[in-house]
């Protein structure tokens, strides 16, 4: 191994001696190795399809199946339901999301008591005293239904949804548009009602729940434009994204599918391997044999090829442009 890398370094030196100073590291031996790796198009295509289905982009998934001439893998049927739930969460309509999640539950759906299922999820949410008047089924049957629910098997997920619902209520209360000049103080009664009926009964079951509830309620006290660093993320829409992601993962698991798209593991292994390789052999991690370039560009739009890493702007969508490949010193 060391023999081969030494050999490659010598080659680089000879070919680009005029442009490369002796003190500079020799990044191109590694770049050459990168270029020599073979990629299977069908593997890459399946990674794309896997992502589109897993993360819920049904229209793109259908188009891709057609354009790439491959079959859509995974449970296409569940996509539209998952997308509706995700969209409800992203739009802040948590009540709809919770109802749809309970409708979604694959086990419940298979039972004959389908029509009652959503009602029982609500019974679950509503505190004890409500529960008697709503209970036409025996305790055992009810437990059976509740046990198979995505949310019931994951109290933390359920709590995070309810807390998000509380946050959305607070957002409506404190947003400037809802505060008319005639009523200087916004009406926070719905917020208090929701917190005391839905979240307060659950809070004692976990210190995290209690802490989350306390923090959330603090949003009512501080002005929204001057929140502390611990509180401001609660009003950031990133929280909706995070909850939507967690819900999607829980639903996929309940369907017996992979929790996350493969591409996530791919970018993580990329980040992990680079970090490990840069640690070097001295820390017991067994670093790279060949010296790595200072920066490994992904070749995405907006990357400086000299390692400056400047990015023009932040956006969720790429404009599809391709940055040209790095010039390779081996090819002259």
């Amino acid at each position, binding site marked *: *191994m060391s023999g*081969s890398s030494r*050999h490659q370094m010598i080659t680089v030196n000879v070919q680009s001696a005029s442009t490369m100073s002796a003190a500079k590291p020799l990044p191109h031996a590694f770049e050459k190795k990168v270029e*020599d*790796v*073979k*990629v299977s*198009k069908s*593997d*890459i295509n399946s*990674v*794309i399809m896997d*992502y*589109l289905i897993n993360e819920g*982009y049904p229209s*793109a998934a259908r*188009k*891709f199946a057609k*354009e790439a*001439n491959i079959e859509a893998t995974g449970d296409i049927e569940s996509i539209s339901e998952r997308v509706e739930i995700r*969209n409800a969460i992203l*739009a802040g309509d948590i009540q709809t999301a919770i109802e749809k999640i309970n409708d979604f539950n694959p086990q419940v759906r298979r039972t004959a008591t389908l029509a009652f299922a959503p009602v029982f999820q609500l019974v679950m949410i509503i505190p004890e005293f409500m529960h008697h008047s709503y209970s036409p089924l025996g305790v055992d049957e009810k437990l059976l239904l509740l046990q198979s629910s995505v949310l019931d098997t994951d109290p933390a997920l359920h709590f995070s949804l309810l807390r998000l619902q509380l946050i959305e209520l607070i957002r409506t209360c404190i947003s400037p548009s809802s505060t008319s000049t005639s009523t200087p103080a916004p009406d926070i009664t719905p917020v208090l009602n929701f917190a005391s009926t839905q979240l307060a009964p659950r809070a004692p079951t976990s210190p995290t729940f209690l802490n989350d509830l306390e923090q959330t309620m603090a949003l009512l006290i501080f002005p929204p434009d001057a929140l502390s660093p611990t509180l401001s993320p609660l009003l950031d*829409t990133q929280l*909706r*994204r995070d909850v939507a*992601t967690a819900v999607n993962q829980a639903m996929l698991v309940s369907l*017996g*599918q992979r929790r996350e*798209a493969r591409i*996530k*593991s*791919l970018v993580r*292994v*990329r*980040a*992990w*391997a*680079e*970090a*490990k*390789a840069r640690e070097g052999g001295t820390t017991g*991690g*067994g670093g*790279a*044999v060949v010296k790595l370039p200072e920066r490994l560009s*992904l*070749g*995405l739009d907006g*990357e400086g090829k000299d390692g400056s890493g400047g990015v023009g702007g*932040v*956006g*969720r*969508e*790429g*404009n*599809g*442009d*391709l940055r*040209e*490949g790095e010039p390779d010193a081996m090819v002259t």
Partner: protein
Amino acid sequence: MNTSHRGITQDVIERAPPFTVDDSVSQLPSRWSDIDKWAGLEITGDGLHVRLTGSSKGTDEAAAVRADHPMPRECGIYYYETTIHSRGKEALIGIGFSARKVILNKLPGWEEHSWAYHSDDGYIFRCTPSGRDYGPRFANGDVIGCGVNFRTGSAFFTKNGVNLGTAFNDIGRDKPYYPSVGMKKAGDYLQVNFGDKPFVFDIDGMMRDEKAIIREEISKANTSTLHSPFDESALIQELIAQFLAHDGYVETAKAFAEEVRDESRLLKTNISQGVRGNDPEEDVDAIHRQQIRASILEGDIDQALKLTSAYYPSVLRDNENIYFKLRCRKFIEMIRTCSMLSSASTFPRKPAPNGFSRKGKNALPQEMDVDSHFSGDTDNWDSMDTEGSDTNAKYSSLTRETIEYGQELNSEFSSDPRREVQKALQDTFALIAYTDATQSNLASLLEVSGRVPVAEELNSAILVSLGKSSSAALERVYKQSEALVSELSNSGGAGAFINIREDILRDDPSR
């Protein structure tokens, strides 16, 4: 246990990317060395048995042997087992490993750069004649295993399938170490298993545990630095969008951008913060490339050639091999159509031009077979008339055309000196020998999936001609990951425990 440890080890080594072809693909220990041994030891049974024939003289004197190859660090954990055959109860045997230069008239473990577990006292010896209490003693009939974890730099021993725990944890990566055993009593002999047979100890389970540790580490990797300031999900969306645009999946790219935009819009409902949501730019080249790809995927090679020479005249000129592949593919497509016509007709018909005639009663099951074989592939089917006489007429004229085209193709490339070109020509032309080539052993050439690599190769060539990278950023991420992991495993690090292709790209949730 259904797989041997060698299976795992081989997997790891075989996945090494092509750039390590020279001297770096390590060979596994496969037998005891006939040369690297002390006199008095006799190696038999394909090099897997070692016996002490002479008697040793002094108390320190012993005889040791090393394996033919060192333990490869790329395998992450190296493990081998020995079965003890001794005459007396008091065997004096050392099982372990040592560096090349270590003298062989001592038991391994007593000398510098050698480590071993000894039978008479159950002690372990780390490069010194004074040992340390470690495990039980061992004797006739026991199976002793020795394993080295190169990631952690530690070694362990097993007795009859039971792990005795970490013995050493300072195994350096600076030099190669060889499996080594030594013995003192004449008549004692050892049988080794370097992985050809299943091990008594569940090494696969240990490998799985190690892999789980690494996967856990990977799942927590910080991806925010990869394309700062993008977070992980933004980076992934960017990678997907860039791939779709780069590879010319125009419709998918549009649909994806739209869906992502809709998603962002939802977030903005009651928030003033503006999020960029512009249309992906109309990329004329992307559309052209998509048209060309679609033509090839539909089997319409003429159309692809026409479009390519119209939009990118230099590409076919500069990439003669791709031009050749397209021409061959056209021939294959013609044969495909012939095959479908020949099996589409259920009527008895005239002998095919090569004199081979099929009986009508055979045609039906074959037709059904072909039908299912090409299900979902409806090109050329829609327009096809299954009226017998009409089909036969079409069939003959198409066969004539195919042969003429084949002759043309042959005259154009028969003088090409390249061996792969001649081989491809030969294989392609062989198809003409069959009335229904889908039933021949060359049927794989006719598979629709064969269009994909041709389409991809042409697409890459067009991209290069446009001054763009031939591979998308997502592919680059994959390539970089493979190269980095290969570096990590070559140096005996954590890379040995992850196989990107198998563990990530083809990860199956049921596993």
